């Protein structure tokens, strides 16, 4: 039953106020201040939407109000994921960053300097599982490059020796 007084656009605005406010708020500064924004605000984007839920959700932990599957488009990675995987911006990421939006953009911007999933998660206050899914996507679509992982580091005497020297030198 569609009524003329309820056009679709209005519906969408009502359904996702945080999406529109986020995009309005972020678009200009994200590009304008790249220098200062490599560490995007420690206020995660989803805080914009918190106001809607605060009243019901008070008492649960800070910053966890958004459901992870909203951020990941329904995909869930429960658990720790590949939390020590390190990502850095690829050439494509550096030049085509503005194609990204929301959390993906934040993740990519952080990765101007190589970051582990755990670091991204801590800086953006997103659960590890969410960052695992999004960073993997960004890697598959070429914006981020994953560092290769050490193959069986526990048997790699050269690697262990390098670590010992590094810790000595601390």
């Amino acid at each position, binding site marked *: 039953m569609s009524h003329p007084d309820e056009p679709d656009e209005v519906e969408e605005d009502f359904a996702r106020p945080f999406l529109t406010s986020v995009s309005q708020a972020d678009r200009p500064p994200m590009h304008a201040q790249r220098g200062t924004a490599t560490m995007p605000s420690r206020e995660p984007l989803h805080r914009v939407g918190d106001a809607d839920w605060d009243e019901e959700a008070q008492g649960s932990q800070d910053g966890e109000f958004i459901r992870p599957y909203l951020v990941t488009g329904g995909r869930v990675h429960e658990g720790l994921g590949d*939390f020590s995987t390190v990502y850095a*911006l690829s050439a494509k990421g550096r*030049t085509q960053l503005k194609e990204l939006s929301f959390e993906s953009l934040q993740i990519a911007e952080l990765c101007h300097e190589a970051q582990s999933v755990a670091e991204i998660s801590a800086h953006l206050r997103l659960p590890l599982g969410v960052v695992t899914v999004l960073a*993997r996507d960004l890697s598959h679509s070429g914006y981020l490059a994953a560092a*290769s992982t050490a193959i069986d580091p*526990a048997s790699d005497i050269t690697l*262990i020796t390098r*670590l010992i020297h590094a810790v000595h030198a601390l």
Partner: protein
Amino acid sequence: MLSTHSDPTRSPAPQGNGGSGRPAPVPVKIIVAGGFGVGKTTLVGAVSEIPPLTTEAAMTSVGKGVDDAGSVTSKTTTTVAMDFGRITVDESLRLYLFGTPGQDRFGFMWNELTTGALGAIVLADSRRLDDSFAAIDFFESRQLPFIVAVNTFDGGQFHSLDDVRAALDVDAHIPVIHTDARNRQVVKETLLTLLDVVLKHAMARQGNGQAG
């Protein structure tokens, strides 16, 4: 074990610009397991080049009635916090130290946590040694190199290391040492003690590999 990250899409089509593309450093990790308040974050912070960061993961586990919720056994989602720091070895290698709750009820996450880890430090409070049992059991069963480091609180050493060793019943070849999570030099030595165990482990493995 090749990771999924080595899939072909990870090297994007050659592009002219962005010549500064150094390869991202390979990460390796060491686990610091211990009970609440035992000093994991302090220890990590003592040697980390960044202030310790906190991250969270939602973990699904089977509730055993340990928490306030009562004795209902059900699948629940727990949020687990990990504090971590890092040490850059050089451009191509980075060490992460992950502090994680060491108690039994977090055991469901340790498989994931220790995959690919070099080794572990069990940080113990000699007044609450039972917080350490589960982690020790797990690392032993996984044959992950580990040491037991008894944190010194306010200069006090409440029990001798021999007593701690006996109470924890760890193998004779596993170092049980004192540490002071606030003291960078002492924490360095603690890390080196672990890395020495890790190295011996690796050499033993290689020996076996060649023999086989």
